[in-house]
């Protein structure tokens, strides 16, 4: 295994690539997990990848507006979590299951 590159400060590209991988993990989890709660957690991974990108770009551009966007994304994530988990509770009350594949009563 080649030695790890060790610059003085990690370049911005590293953060961006990390964020892209994290986003990919979120998308992967969303697409192939069956449990709704885990699917929802995958969305949180995606949002964190977005936040990481915002901060990295903000650092690169020497602005703080990226921090503000991240702040708003977090607030929205909190609101979504509240509503999403309430919806998950109603699904569980009505169907007694949280398997994505089994929630398919709507079709032709």
């Amino acid at each position, binding site marked *: 295994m080649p030695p790890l590159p060790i610059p003085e400060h990690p370049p911005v590209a590293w953060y*961006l690539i990390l964020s892209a991988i994290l*986003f990919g993990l*979120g*998308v992967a989890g*969303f697409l192939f997990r069956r449990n*709704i709660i885990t*699917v*929802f957690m995958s*969305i949180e991974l*995606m*949002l964190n*990848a*977005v936040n990481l*990108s*915002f901060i*990295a*770009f*903000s650092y*690169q*551009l020497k*602005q703080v*507006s*990226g921090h*503000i*966007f991240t702040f*708003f*994304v977090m607030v*929205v994530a909190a*609101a*979504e979590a509240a*509503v*999403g988990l309430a*919806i*998950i509770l*109603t*699904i569980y*009350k*009505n*169907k007694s299951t949280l398997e994505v594949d089994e*929630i398919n*009563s*709507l*079709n*032709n």
Partner: protein
Amino acid sequence: MPASFMPSAQEMMRFLPETLLTLAGVFLMVLEAIMAPENKGRLKAFALFALAAALAAAVIAYNDPGPAFNRLLIIDGFATFFRVLVIGVAILAVLGSSQYLAREGANPGEYWALVLFSVVGQSLMVTSNELIMIFIGLEISSIASYVLAGYLRDDARNSESALKYFLLGSFATGFLLYGVAWIYGLTGTTDLSQIRADLANRDISNSMMMIGAACALMFVGFAFKVSAAPFQVWAPDVYQGAPSPVAAFLSSGPKAAAFAMFLRVFVTAFEPVADRWEPIVWASALVTMIVGNFAALRQTNVKRLMAYSSIAHAGYVMVAVATHSKLGIEAAMFYLAAYALTNLGAFAVITCLVGKGERFVEIKDLAGLGARQPLSAAMLTIFLLSLIGVPLTGGFFGKFYIFKAALDARLIWLTVLGLLNSAVAAYYYLRILVVMYMEEPGDTVENTQEMGGALKFVLVGSAVATLVIGTFPSLLLDVASRYAVLGR
């Protein structure tokens, strides 16, 4: 740091519709808590009054167009047109919901409040000139809509609809935000005008790949919201499972607002790279029309059929987006207004016919409607003809202007394929007409619930409006062309 950050009176005037709706929504919930149960019918009147006041405020705000709040918002003709449209849709949706809610025994207080909040979100979506504001508006509208889709908590279909809407909506938000993050990183701003200036004035050949990727990510997010292919899969389940009046609302108001922000972002901010995104929108428009129309052919459930029809109509509007010309924007505005009217009217008939617990949702349940309820049947005929695009209806001129704009923009193949698609669409709409007038009623005769006055008003009002803009299209087209002004 600016000396004073208090907004001026002028800015507050431009922001008046949203302020009114927010205050009304909050006030409604307070009233809901303190009012005696027998007086709760007045809540609806209050919600309607607030919407009417907001409508007036939106019109008045255009007397003094311009930006507000550090250019985060921009009140231009385009914003005003869509503000009026989404508030108008909400008025019709409120009128069309009360009978349904009473029939299902649902508490209407929160319903009206959530509709008002959703309209605040939509109104922000269409007035925002900044990606973060667009995102926040979109989320307000979406969160209220998720709850509305699952409003009858004990109905499994409602919960399923809300869940699918929520999961896929949040997934789309993730893509949209990732695109916003990259645009911010590449241009250093999220202000649409500044993004445009940056893309137009700087040598971007170096970072073209990344700009393209950012546009594509944002396109994915928007395509989800307007239910354009290949991201339309949520729409049939959500519209089928949601309460009928909610499905009517979701497929008219939020959809028009989503198209408005789509148009604003792509036609102002990304105009300098239009030759890059045009092929994507072109392909998506074509696939959306084909998927919507051909899947609708196989449906037996009326609500699901309307959902696929709504996908197909999103495809026609995508054709208008692909032109990215002023003519195309006008055509999209005309089309979205005409479609909203027709769609709300058709869903008003469905809302009445499905019966308590939504038991009669199959096409065969419409058999003999012409004899049973001549008025509903006649109105539904007008709406279906408009959805097909038969002359003398609003739908005809909607399609006409879109394909005219497409021809002007040299999108010949898209026009030809789009016209072929409308011919396919005629089949499944006409099938409903045949069932309605030619077939004997089955065992669903028991379902002859009287249509309430409010629902009748929605029905007749939208039918008349559909015919009027079909006969005198210049009434609406003049407005659209005068208001198709995107402030920069």
